[in-house]
């Protein structure tokens, strides 16, 4: 029995009905949709945020997002979604700690333990189903509160038969993926290093770019080896931040202002947890997630469709693998394209013009929201020194990190 205190929370928002022909164009049952991103706010983006508790950090981010959207969370929002993971928080059943700082006390809130883009997808579904007209998605990283993050990442390996073999930093899986990717695609080793060079350089122009640097491939390749062939400078480092998005139905978004960025397609997919069974060279889960998002957004030729992309670069090779999985480069060609500048901030398709995770920092489950944040700033024309001229269509993609094989993709437009 749903006993909401606010009468508007039980309103079912009428959805636009689609013509038969319109639906027939989407034979797999996908209805065309447009969900508006009407507000965004963030706080943190620092290696440490010792002055603020997680909840205070979230309050700052959420306050900015509501101000940006022009909504009052106590009256105007019918669904709140948080993306957090108990072990990163250090609290069991973390979801119970989320309402107050988001304005969600005694309102519908759920937490999903997955990446923020999957949280966006969840909010889209709440809006499309008619139970919400405005929905909020939050995710954060307070990695500086975690003393031994490797213990937690390692604990993601199968507890019964994988976890106990190795007393090694969990990145050995990334090393193995990278090795197989390089071998199968014939990609030159140094092209991976160039991803780190590009992204760290881009981050120097980003006020959020904690790990920006002006370095060359030699420095990247000669930095300490984490798990061969992966080096330390090719591994993103965790930082703290909270990011909040306000989403609205198309009807509502039009009333809320003129800087709406639209989610036009969104997809996600998970491969098997049996790491041995995966195709190490390619990210099949990203291929699938992108395929679904493209279909919803009617993207026929991804390589020429987008004005910018913010894609997974938790590790250098991941960017290449992701670009190929999403058909922004053909198989085995992403490395060469990075090396020749096609994906530079002023290249044919700017990829991680923000600096990505390598340049800005990694945000645990908030990483997907970080990529979306950067893309939204671009599509609003508010990206400052990072601004890609005439940016109208953007692609964002995330991966949940070691040892997962879960990816999510969203197509955005203004």
């Amino acid at each position: 029995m749903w006993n909401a205190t606010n009468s508007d929370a039980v309103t079912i928002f009428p959805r636009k009905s689609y013509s038969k022909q319109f639906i027939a164009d989407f034979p797999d049952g996908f209805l065309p949709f447009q969900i508006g991103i009407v507000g965004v706010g963030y706080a943190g983006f620092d290696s440490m945020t010792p002055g603020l508790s997680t909840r205070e950090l979230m309050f700052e981010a959420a306050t900015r997002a509501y101000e940006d959207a022009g909504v009052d969370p106590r009256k105007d929002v019918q669904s709140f979604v948080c993306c957090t993971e108990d072990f990163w928080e250090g609290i069991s059943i973390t979801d119970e700690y989320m309402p107050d700082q988001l304005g969600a006390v005694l309102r519908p809130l759920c937490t999903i333990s997955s990446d923020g883009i999957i949280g966006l997808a969840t909010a889209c579904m709440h809006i499309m189903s008619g139970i919400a007209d405005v929905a909020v998605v939050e995710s954060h990283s307070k990695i500086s509160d975690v003393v031994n993050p490797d213990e937690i990442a390692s604990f993601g390996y199968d507890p019964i038969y994988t976890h106990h073999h190795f007393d090694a930093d969990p990145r050995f899986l990334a090393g193995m993926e990278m090795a197989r990717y390089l071998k199968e695609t014939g990609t030159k080793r140094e092209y991976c290093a160039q991803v780190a060079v590009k992204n760290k350089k881009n981050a120097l122009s980003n006020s959020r770019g904690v790990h920006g640097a002006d370095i060359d491939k030699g420095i990247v390749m000669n930095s300490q080896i984490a798990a061969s062939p992966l080096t330390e400078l090719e591994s993103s480092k965790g930082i703290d931040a909270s990011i909040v998005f306000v989403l609205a139905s198309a009807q509502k978004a039009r009333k809320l202002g003129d800087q709406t960025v639209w989610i036009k397609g969104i997809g996600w997919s998970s491969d098997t947890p049996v790491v041995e069974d995966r195709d190490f060279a390619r990210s099949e889960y990203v291929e699938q997630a992108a395929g679904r998002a493209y279909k919803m957004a009617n993207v026929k030729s991804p390589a020429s469709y987008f004005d910018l992309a913010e894609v997974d670069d938790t590790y250098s090779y991941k960017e290449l693998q992701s670009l190929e999985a999403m058909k922004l480069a053909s198989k085995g060609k992403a490395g060469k394209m990075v090396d020749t500048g096609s994906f530079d901030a002023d290249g044919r398709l700017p990829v991680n013009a923000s600096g990505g995770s390598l340049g800005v920092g990694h945000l645990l489950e908030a990483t997907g929201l970080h990529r979306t944040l950067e893309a939204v700033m671009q599509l609003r024309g508010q990206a400052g020194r990072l601004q890609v001229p005439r940016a109208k269509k953007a692609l964002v993609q995330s991966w949940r990190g070691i040892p997962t094989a879960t990816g999510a993709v969203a197509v955005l437009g203004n």
Partner: protein
Amino acid sequence: MSQKITSYQGREITPDEVKEGKYLDIVYKFEPKYSWAAGVAISRFLTELKDGKIVARKCYKCERILVPPRMYCEQCYRPTDEWVQVKDTGTVNTFSISHVGTDARRLKTPILVAVVDIDGASPGMGILHNLGEVERSKISVGMKVQAVWKGSEERQGAITDIRYFKPI
């Protein structure tokens, strides 16, 4: 059990079989470690406890006085406005006598758990703490209590700087 199935085949696993290793399992002690930033509100709260004081935050909009303090009012959704010192006395809102420890053992000395609504804070604003210097049978909802503090040299800026609340 359903109407169709009235008994299941099988037998109990004996402790000896487990000791013999007949059934395999994996034992691992997971040891995540955290160092949580207490934040603006709770840092001040704990610092004041060290000085033997309980502080709260006031929201000017709903005029509630929140303890433990928070930098935001969850009802009005706005920053709270002012630090307010509240008393170290209060009223037992509710209580329970816990007879079972975290390891499922029966406790020889039961733990007296209570929510104490603090005097000076808004109604229903309280601190979850222990009761002490009281017979179990004498505890009641609505009982007036006061904090019993550790000595000033013993206090370290933790909720345990208050040992317990005792009846007054």
